[in-house]
């Protein structure tokens, strides 16, 4: 018997002689020692900030004001993001597309073949430019605001307020924070689940984060809510109805988050390890430098870079599908025709499905891709909203059902490639990454199929 074996054997024998809860005693003695040192080394000042902390806590977690304050702050952050991102997005788009035209003209002057110019500038570059101009401004506004609340110490109080609801769904209160982060970007939301230290609840938060619509999907939802849902109401109410429909979609997303969390915790994840702890740290003065650093470098640039690496190939594929023709019809049209029956089944059409398939890398380019196929242009395009509504309804048979189902589909469908990749990296498992796609896509098809069938059965469409 080697020495190591002897030692192991002895340890095994000794372990059985230990009292039942010797770990308790070890921890107790550690704490006693730490307390003794702290008493000797730390002088406690009659703390005023401690009282202030308590006062703030009583307000923000109070049974009466706690939830309203929280909802108000969330609405405020989203409102600032949506409004504030409008103009910078437009400027960025103008600038980036101006550059595209200049470059393409230059290529033509040099006598480059049309397909090279198209592929490089109207394909790869255009995809990139689109994603950057739609994605960057909202993220650059949302993340600093969110990080500000985080740095302040307010966010754990939100988890504290909401935990009861998440407990009912078998999840962790901190999931409310990762969901809020998901409004900025689902990939960032998935990364943020690291704050949940219990393995089962963390997996739940990762797999359901996509049910919160991110910045990339918000513009689509707002567009649909404005030109289709609100158009059915008197003009005085339009902006109100548009906002209401987007809020309703978000609420549906929250409902599905809780529902799927509940199902997961009772089926697939039943045996995963679980524990609940939540510390409410003291409030502190936000550090502006740190806020800007974490929100812009750690979050915005990180997410943007991942999006760019997936958007460039997507731009290339989109351009190729629109410009390679078989029998006088582009590949995109062929595929859209093939997908049409499936699209009809869920109240959409083949073009929309195709746009979702090739725009997996980034949700921002779904609508431009859709328009490209509808209008038969060779590249992704955008239109003013008033023209958009007319074209979709009169030439492509869109109804209220199409718009509502598209909103639902945009909310529930599979995560974008960046998020899937992030889920794979965070869980270290292809199984969970695949599973996240299966449950979201399954939910999306099921829900839209049900609404379409119901609407048709009642003869509303």
């Amino acid at each position, binding site marked *: 018997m080697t020495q190591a074996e002897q030692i192991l054997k002895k340890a095994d024998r000794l372990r059985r002689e230990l009292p039942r809860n010797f770990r308790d005693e070890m921890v107790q003695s550690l704490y006693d020692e730490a307390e003794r040192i702290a008493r000797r080394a730390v002088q406690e000042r009659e703390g005023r900030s401690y009282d202030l902390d*308590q006062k703030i806590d009583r307000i923000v*977690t109070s049974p*009466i004001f706690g939830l309203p304050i929280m909802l108000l702050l969330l609405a405020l952050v989203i409102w600032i993001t949506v409004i504030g991102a409008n103009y910078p997005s437009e400027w960025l788009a103008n600038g980036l597309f101006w550059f595209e035209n200049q470059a393409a003209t230059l290529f033509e002057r040099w006598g480059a073949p049309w397909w090279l110019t198209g592929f490089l500038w109207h394909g790869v570059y255009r995809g990139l430019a689109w994603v950057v101009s739609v994605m960057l401004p909202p993220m650059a506004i949302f993340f600093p605001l969110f990080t500000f609340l985080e740095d302040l110490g307010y966010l754990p109080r939100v988890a*504290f307020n909401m*935990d009861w609801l998440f407990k009912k769904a078998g999840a962790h209160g901190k999931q409310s924070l990762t969901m809020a982060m998901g409004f900025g970007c689902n990939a960032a939301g998935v990364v943020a689940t690291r704050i949940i230290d219990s393995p089962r609840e963390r997996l739940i938060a990762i797999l359901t984060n996509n049910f919160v619509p991110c910045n990339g999907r918000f513009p689509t939802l707002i567009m649909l809510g404005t030109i289709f849902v609100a158009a059915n109401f008197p003009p005085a109410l339009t902006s109100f109805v548009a906002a209401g429909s987007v809020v309703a979609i978000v609420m549906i997303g929250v409902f599905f988050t809780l529902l799927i969390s509940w199902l997961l915790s009772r089926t697939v994840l039943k*045996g995963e390890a679980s*524990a609940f702890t*939540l*510390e*409410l740290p003291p409030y502190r003065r936000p550090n502006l430098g740190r806020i800007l650093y974490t929100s812009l470098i750690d979050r915005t640039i990180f997410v943007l870079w991942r999006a760019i690496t997936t958007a460039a190939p997507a731009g290339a594929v989109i351009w190729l599908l629109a410009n390679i023709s078989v029998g006088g019809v582009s590949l995109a049209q062929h595929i859209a025709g093939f997908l049409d029956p499936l699209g009809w089944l869920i109240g959409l059409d083949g073009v929309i499905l195709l746009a979702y398939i090739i725009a997996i890398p980034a949700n921002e380019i779904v609508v431009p891709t859709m328009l490209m196929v509808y209008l038969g242009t060779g590249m992704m395009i955008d239109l003013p909203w008033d023209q958009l509504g007319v074209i979709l309804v009169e030439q492509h048979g869109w109804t209220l059902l199409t718009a509502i189902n598209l909103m639902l589909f945009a909310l529930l469908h599979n995560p974008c490639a960046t998020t899937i990749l992030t889920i794979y990296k965070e869980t270290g498992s292809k199984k969970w990454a695949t599973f996240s796609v299966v449950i979201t896509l399954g939910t999306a098809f099921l829900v839209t199929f049900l609404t379409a069938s119901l609407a048709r059965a009642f003869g509303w469409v």
Partner: protein
Amino acid sequence: MTSWLFFFLLLALLAAPRVGLYALWQARRAERAREQVEDALKYLLDHEQAGLHVTTAALAGALRLSPARAARLADRMAAQGLLEFRGPALHLTPDGERWAMDVLRAHRLWERYLADEARMPLEKIHREAHRREHTLTAEQLDALDAALGYPQFDPHGDPIPRPGRPPAERGQPATSWPPDTAGRIIHLEDEPPLAYQQILAAGLQLGQIVRVLERTPERLVLSDGQNEYRLAPAVAANIFLAPAHDARPLPAGVQPLHLLPHGQPAEIVAIDERIQGFTRRRFLDLGLTPGTRIVPALENFFREPRAYRVRGTLIALRNDQAAHILVRPLNAEEASDE
């Protein structure tokens, strides 16, 4: 052309290696066979330890097989050298016994895991552990054992067998325990389930220190100093006790933390013995050790979780967790100390 495409897709779905339907069916069949053999081994081990003989007919009844299938299973196991026939009775060979011990070990380790790490209710863990006990390789089993910190008992107090280690004591049933002697509950038999559920419903738990107050043919009364537990003798026979030398009675006025009124300072007395593993480690990490002062400091709209001030920090606990922390409320004089 489309119909050919569908034909090939269908073919792939059926015949693909590893993920095709046929391959899945084959794998499932192999699993079923292993489950059957292992269940039979466990059944034999259980009865041999109790000094009972098992016939093929009894095996058929226990595994819910037809007599012919049970006979085939026994023949197959005999051919594998796991059991031998002695007249009508079946006996485990040393190989069979070793394998059976491994299955038992897997079952009890899984119960430990499900109770401690997955926080599954005690009455549900037996079924889930039964489902999982057949899925591990020997290496995975060792890894699970190590990850759990080599526990000695499962959550019902049954010893976890390990290769080359004598089985630990099992205690004495409460029905034959001497009256007025303190005993620690070291085992709660989980079969039959009905009796086990009654024991849990009465509020008795592993590690509790009790005395037998009264014993008649109709009932048995146990007391832990605060509550009395009345049980039918048939149920009480499933409670096993061992001498409690280090028994410390809980001081008067102790209550679970979640019932402590808002703002009432208290001192932590103990953490419930039932709470082991992950959850207990978390409690300890947060500094919730006996002797620590704690005050319920925040309540929200839903009244759950509640936040407690302890060691200068605020920690939120759900009520089902706080219920496992026993505290003694401090009176005004004690509270103003420090």
